[in-house]
């Protein structure tokens, strides 16, 4: 044990000493020769050349950096129904943050919460409880990538058109349920309508898949979720 720790310490110290040194050497090599060359090539009467014949009377223009409002982020909330396998369907609500990389692709982080109901076994037996109160809390996060597969427009009446997109989403994350965290793969699709340029209304369907051995034997569960969301671009 001591040997490993010492070895690691030694490696850290060695790397800290050697690596910045390499970068420094490289920097020197690039800089010096040019300066020497410049000094050699200067003509003798250079002092007179520097002074311009006519002094230009130009006012320096004020340079403003363009401040264009970029709206690539999307933040919102959602509410819907989550069916937890063996544990009834319940209300789910959550928050999501999306970043639009291009017009076709986006990244999404979602955080949702629900509460599990009772299994059929618990209901039939009357008093048996599989999970305590706090173990029935269902919380998940998902990091996903999305593809705007079918962008388009919807027409409401004669004079209104709203931009829309049907998108596919897939990702990974974690679900905390029955006292444990479980690696979760999620995927689904959604439909987004933009009533104005910065507001989006979403209808989403997701499937959250993970392994659980709560009822004695390990099995894969599919928890389906459908929700309605509202988000703002900023």
């Amino acid at each position, binding site marked *: *044990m001591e040997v*490993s*720790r010492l070895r*690691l310490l030694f*490696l*850290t110290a060695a*790397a800290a000493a050697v*690596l*910045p040194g*390499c*970068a420094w050497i490289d920097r020197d090599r690039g800089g010096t020769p040019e300066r020497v060359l410049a000094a050699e090539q200067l003509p003798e009467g250079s002092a007179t050349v520097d002074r311009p014949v006519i002094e230009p009377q130009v006012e320096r*223009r004020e340079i403003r*950096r*363009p*401040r*264009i*409002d*970029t*709206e*690539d982020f999307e*933040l*919102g*909330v959602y509410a819907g129904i989550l069916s937890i396998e063996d544990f009834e369907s319940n209300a789910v609500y*959550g*928050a999501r*943050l999306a970043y*639009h*990389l*291009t*017009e076709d692709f986006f*990244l999404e982080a979602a*955080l949702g*919460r629900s509460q599990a109901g009772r299994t059929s076994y618990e209901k039939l037996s009357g008093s048996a409880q599989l999970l305590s109160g706090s173990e029935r*809390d269902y*919380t998940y996060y998902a*990091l996903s990538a999305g593809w*705007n597969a079918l*962008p*388009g*427009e919807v027409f409401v009446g004669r004079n209104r*058109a709203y*931009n829309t997109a049907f998108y596919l989403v897939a990702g*990974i*994350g*974690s679900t*905390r349920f*029955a*006292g*444990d*965290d*479980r*690696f979760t793969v999620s995927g689904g699709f959604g439909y987004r309508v933009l009533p104005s*340029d*910065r507001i989006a209304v979403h209808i989403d369907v997701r499937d959250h898949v993970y*392994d659980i*051995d*709560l009822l004695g034997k390990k099995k894969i569960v599919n928890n389906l979720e459908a929700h309605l969301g509202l988000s*703002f*671009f*900023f």
Partner: protein
Amino acid sequence: MSRLFWLAGLLACFAIPAAQADDFRNVVIADPFIELHSGPGRGYPVFHVIERGREVVLIKRRTDWFQVRTDRGLEGWVPRAQMLATLEPDGQPLALQEPSRENYLKRRWQAGVMAGDFAGASLISAFGGYAFSDNLSIDVALSHIQGEFSNGYAATIGLMHVFVPEWRLSPYFTLGTGIIHVKPKSTLVRAVDRDDQIGYVGGGLQFYLTRRFMLRTEYRSNVIFTSRDDNEEVDEWKYLGFAFFF
């Protein structure tokens, strides 16, 4: 996790759009003409054309599309390729700052997410870094490890040395230390939580994708300094990571 949830909820409440400052920018069209699309995407129909010399107001940008307003009050979306040639009212070309290869070489901060395998368990890792020279940076990572018998969290800090930063695909070396918290699953009997120190040495590949985005893949050989007689050696593979720099 629940605290995190409330924090996110609170953030969502505050994100309701604040009133935008009305210092919109006027630009002059320099292309022979530009086409206004009804939405920020290549498929949206063109409903209006503005010819060279006319002035438009830049309202906002979404990905590679700009929303402009004409002097007649029409609003539409123009692709970046057509906006590149537009001019400021004083005749200067409009400086659209585009993150590019040059910015990649000068990057200081980066952040991203990686996914992989930690001794057979699934691993999700968020990382951030600060580069204090072209080659060398500090790398901080928070990992969520989810296995069949136990779950865990790890927080590490280390040095990362990119061998040839100017290459599009460059190998790097990394070395650091941190802490790991392991929590056996609640279905196991007589298991206790553990906090241990962890040290790692590893390497990986960094690939500049486009704009401000990078891909990363990494291997780490971890040593967990347990309170038992033996240290544990754990292989950690981060198959794929996505990062952006700024």
